[in-house]
């Protein structure tokens, strides 16, 4: 009797194993079913860069929801699972592993902080899963080319840094340049590239000030800046920190021309900094401003964003728009990959994009040797009452 029971148990186990094998064979491509494409997405939804993280999520989701309402891509609706990386490498790795191993997503989208993306890169390469980002601007993401990483949106950080440095030296022709950067990888990278450009031009910065992400008091740095009285200060800071800093600068009577990197070009900076932001200049990745509603694509974006997310002071922002644009590029590649979707086909589809014009940003071109899709950046000045204007300056970083 005992032996019969053992035999039956053994047969049951074998049958279960065969059954599960059969079940796994039914899903050929992770994250793809006959009516859904499962996409994993990352953004810092906590931490010092939450403003950009929320914009990443809301801007992209606006476009994804829009195309789902229109029937999806090749008959499949996009389902996006957002995870918080907190702008912290370890959290980024954990989030990517969860999306790949537990949620079994087909591809990855988003990310704002390059440190989190680069930390998760080994996982991405091991799983051969594509990751498209509009925000993560660190040059190593696309140089040298990583087979599964693609970017279109913000220019690489070295180009951004050179652009603002060039603006100070060659356009505004100032003599005394200061640098104010965060102590994280992003800020340090910015500083190093600004210094590299200034060395080429034989210009010595009069001050280099540093702060930690999340700092709320900048008295010591601003007091030192006041003593050297720079004409221009090039800043690489996250939105919240920069907004607090610029208010304190005004209070302490530190009034250089502030030229900021990408994050401070977004509307929430001006909303949080108030009148202290007036006169500051920042990078801007688009041909148009968000107020250029005579441009059909800008009007469409604003309409969809208002319908799905809602408008409030500072929103939609440049961050929302860049990720809306990024979602457009991502969706186009998915469409070109066809109905018989595989990860390899998605990679080929991205590499096949040539002069894809979203009508919002510069056209996107990828190839096997180039996984950064678009170059070109503008400068915007913040005016009173939160208005802004594009500067008529064309700067070639190299």
């Amino acid at each position: 009797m005992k032996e019969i029971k053992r035999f039956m148990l053994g047969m049951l186990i074998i049958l279960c194993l065969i059954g599960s094998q059969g079940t796994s064979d039914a899903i050929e491509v992770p994250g793809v079913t006959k009516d859904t494409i499962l996409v994993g997405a990352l953004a810092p939804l906590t931490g010092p860069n939450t403003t950009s993280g929320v914009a990443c999520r809301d801007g992209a989701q606006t476009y994804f929801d829009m195309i789902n309402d229109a029937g999806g891509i090749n008959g499949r609706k996009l389902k996006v699972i957002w995870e918080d990386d907190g702008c912290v490498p370890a959290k980024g790795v954990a989030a990517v592993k969860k999306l790949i191993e537990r949620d079994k997503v087909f591809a990855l989208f988003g990310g704002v902080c390059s440190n989190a993306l680069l930390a998760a890169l080994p996982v991405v390469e091991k799983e051969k899963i594509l990751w498209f980002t509009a925000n993560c601007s660190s040059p190593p993401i696309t140089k040298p080319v990583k087979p599964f990483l693609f970017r279109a949106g913000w220019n690489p950080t070295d180009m951004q840094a050179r652009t603002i440095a060039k603006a100070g030296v060659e356009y505004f022709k100032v003599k005394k340049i200061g640098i104010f950067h965060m102590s994280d990888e992003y800020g340090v990278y910015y500083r190093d590239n600004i210094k590299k450009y200034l060395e080429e031009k034989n210009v010595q910065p009069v001050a280099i000030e540093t702060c930690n992400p999340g700092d709320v008091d900048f008295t010591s740095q601003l007091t030192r800046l006041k003593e050297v009285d720079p004409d221009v200060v090039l800043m690489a800071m996250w939105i919240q920190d920069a907004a607090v800093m610029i208010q304190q600068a005004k209070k302490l009577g530190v009034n250089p021309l502030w030229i900021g990197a990408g994050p401070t070009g977004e509307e929430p900076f001006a909303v949080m900094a108030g009148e202290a932001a007036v006169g500051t200049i920042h990078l801007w990745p688009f041909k148009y401003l968000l107020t250029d509603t005579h441009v059909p694509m800008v009007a469409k974006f604003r309409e969809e964003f208002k319908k799905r997310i809602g408008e409030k002071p500072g929103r939609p922002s440049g961050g929302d728009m860049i990720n809306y644009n990024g979602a457009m590029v991502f969706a186009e590649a998915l469409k070109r990959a066809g109905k018989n979707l595989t990860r390899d086909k998605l990679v080929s589809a991205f590499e096949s994009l040539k002069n894809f014009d979203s009508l919002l940003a510069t056209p996107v071109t990828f190839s096997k040797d180039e996984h950064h899709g678009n170059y070109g950046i503008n400068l915007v000045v913040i005016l009173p009452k939160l208005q802004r204007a594009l500067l008529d300056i064309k700067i070639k970083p190299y």
Partner: protein
Amino acid sequence: MLRLAQLIVDGTVLGGTYAICALGMVVIFKATDVINIAQGELVMMAAFFGFTFRVYFGWSFTPSFLLAIGFIIFLSLAIERLALRPLIKAPIWTNIITTMAVLIILQAAARLIWGPEPYAFPPYLSRMPLNIAGIRLTHQDVAILGTSIIYMILLFLFFKYARIGKGMRAVQMDKEAASLMGISVRKMYSYVWMLNAILVGTIGILLAPRLGVYSTMGLLFIKGFVVAVMGGFTSLAGSIVGGFLLGVVETLAGFYISSTMKDIVSFIILILILIVKPTGLFAESVTKRV
């Protein structure tokens, strides 16, 4: 000289906020033996309540402030009644873990209700800087520092002369004896949490226009805990002195040593103080029957 004075004044404003946070923690600890790790989150919630009334409802500053204080008092009482009162006889570590849980819950609740992004809080006073004998301050700096000092004076008077204040002191000294004298210990616990709510609520709303309002802003106030430890965790005077000392030293360290190292300097000072005086700057001696 003017530069040094500016640094000291700015450090004093910063220190005032640390001192108020620490005072609330010490007041709670002395009466209830609870170390409130979620102190910063109460500051955050007060800022969000104030933001809601001021921006979403469009009310002016004073009613928004008063109602926000009311809400944070209610929240604090709920935390005391639901999370901490059942653990009244539990060891100190249980209470610490409980307040850590409250910290996580409040952060998550804030993200759920208001979202993860930061918000701008409209200034309640002019942002134009004042120039007082060469020292530059904003109207908000004056408000924050002035309120901190007024609260400290009021707290001193409250504990010395007010009936409820004397009751709280009695409970802090000896709960059993206080109970035998007819003082309701549980009521005193509630009053202590209400008092803390007024302190941290005020600081949260006053600081909101400068810092913005976001769900993780409570972490900034971990320095309140450092100050409370520096002061001895049983001394109100220690919290005040510790707070101002930390604010000034941090600002000076940021200027004279390194702006990225000033947080490290705070903790080095804490360690040095504890090495010289392990019970803290002004700790009251505690005797236990063995």
